[in-house]
């Protein structure tokens, strides 16, 4: 029944790269990890890149002349170049290292937005945003009195582009939206949204936390102004993310955090900011993590983003099919055509925590809660969902185990 073979993609070989997949969270059962949307697992190549960095090349960067400092600096900057290439950025200096997607978005809110938005100015978001792309703007709203408007989400979980068009007529300054919903799995038509925004003179920010890890994202093709993403969701380490920005925007933004490295010169009473990208990187950055991020991008590139997307699509299609068979189970979001590898569902009136906990007894790791998208859950009239998500290392067999597990959950509560 299960077809393990995929064109150009040997999932067994991939799985061998991820040591944690052998971990038995329950005796005798290697973990079935269906929680990559929250954070992905890491291949040996990434873990070892950091291990080797700490054992061979560790030192602080940029201001060091000695060999270790030179090596660390080179590795840190080479990683930036790899990541720039991965998203087809015109220049590596347009990539700012941050902690995660959240900090990337906050950076824009603190610098570009505070320099450019005034009371009454309108920011367009969507009803399917992660809290990371809501709270920073709500904070600016209470500080500045900007106006937040939301592109409606339809019953099937798609953005209602008519509602977008009517908002565009009200002179928005910024359109900030997720490339892919971490709950519905919806892949939004980013290119079109951005084109329309630009036609109306608005700047655009794409939350790429779920897109960059899962399919090829080309910032020049998108023509996006800002793109935010996290390493930990794309087989990279925790503690590091990226903000990409168009050069003229970044150059005209005031700095964010103040301190070492982001300066050209400092006197007691004033400072002169440094060039890009250092202007936005204050203090000792996440050096080993940058090295790990570079290795992650190498890994994904070597597998191939198209192959990864195709694999995920096949698994997701299969999962949706199988989940549909389960009585009382309701998956949110569009069908597999417009959908990434995410299946968030309700199951009778069972509480997602209970579902997740009982699945865990069979080694199946899924997430339960509002997945940092509380307004979206409110919209659909549920407090929480159970979410299974898929990445390059998942298999149809694992989907089968999930289905079996769900039937067991039902038994416990009957």
């Amino acid at each position, binding site marked *: 029944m299960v077809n393990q073979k995929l064109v150009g993609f040997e999932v067994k070989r991939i799985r061998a790269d991820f040591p944690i997949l052998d971990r038995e969270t329950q005796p005798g059962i290697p973990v079935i990890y269906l929680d990559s949307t929250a954070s992905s697992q890491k291949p040996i190549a990434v873990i070892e890149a950091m291990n080797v960095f700490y054992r061979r090349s560790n030192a602080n960067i940029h201001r060091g002349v000695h060999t270790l400092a030179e090596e660390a600096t080179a590795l840190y900057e080479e990683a930036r170049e790899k990541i720039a290439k991965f998203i087809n950025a015109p220049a590596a200096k347009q990539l700012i290292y941050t902690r995660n997607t959240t900090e990337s978005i906050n950076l824009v809110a603190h610098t570009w937005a505070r320099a450019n938005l005034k009371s009454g100015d309108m920011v367009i978001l969507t009803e399917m945003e992660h809290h990371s792309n809501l709270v920073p703007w709500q904070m600016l709203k209470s500080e500045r009195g900007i106006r937040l408007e939301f592109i409606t989400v339809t019953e099937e979980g798609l953005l209602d582009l008519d509602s977008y068009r009517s908002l565009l007529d009200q002179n928005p300054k910024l359109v900030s939206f997720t490339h892919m919903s971490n709950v519905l799995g919806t892949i939004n038509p980013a290119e079109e949204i951005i084109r329309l925004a630009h036609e109306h003179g608005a700047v655009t920010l794409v939350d790429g936390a779920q897109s960059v890890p899962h399919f090829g994202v080309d910032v020049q093709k998108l023509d996006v102004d800002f793109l935010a993403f996290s390493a930990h969701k794309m087989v990279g380490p925790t503690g590091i993310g990226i903000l990409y920005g168009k050069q003229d925007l970044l150059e005209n933004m005031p700095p964010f955090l103040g301190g070492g490295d982001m300066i050209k010169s400092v006197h007691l009473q004033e400072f002169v900011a440094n060039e890009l990208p250092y202007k936005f990187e204050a203090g000792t950055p996440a050096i080993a993590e940058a090295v790990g991020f570079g290795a992650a991008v190498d890994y994904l590139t070597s597998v191939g983003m198209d192959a990864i997307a195709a694999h995920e699509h096949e698994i997701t299609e299969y999962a949706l099919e199988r989940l549909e068979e389960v009585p009382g189970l309701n998956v949110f979001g569009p069908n597999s055509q417009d959908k990434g590898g995410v299946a968030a569902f309700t199951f009778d009136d069972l509480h997602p925590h209970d579902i997740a906990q009982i699945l865990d007894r069979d080694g199946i790791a899924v997430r*339960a809660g509002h997945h940092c998208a509380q307004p979206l859950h409110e919209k659909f009239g549920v407090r*929480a969902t159970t979410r299974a998500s898929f990445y390059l290392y998942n298999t149809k067999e694992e989907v089968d185990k999930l289905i079996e597990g769900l039937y*067991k959950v039902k038994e416990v509560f009957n």
Partner: protein
Amino acid sequence: MDDLYREQIIERYKEPHYRGHLDPNDIQFEDDNPLCGDHIEITLRVDKDDKVVEAAFDGHGCAISQSSADLLVESIHGKALDEIKSMNKDAVLDLLGIELGHVRLKCALLSLKVLKAGVYGLGEANDDLVA
């Protein structure tokens, strides 16, 4: 799964003994678990010696949060408010009879947090109450 979802927990979840809202009451408090939106309200009636004569809980949530609320409310009948103030997380874990990780602990302890915040007459509950 049986050690975790012990029969008692599932039973109490499906058919709680003390679900309800006392009106009038002497003490009332409610709070959410921000991690999952689970909600517990507890209402108490106390006698002139500050002993609990009646108690009930209401709300919604997972089996752990709801059954522990039911078991907790049961356990405080006849207790003095001062005794309640000195209850800690072990009281709830003893009632449940299971071990819990960091995240599920918050589910289990929501009712105790609500109870103690009510008994102390606090404006807001906090995690120190169930440390």
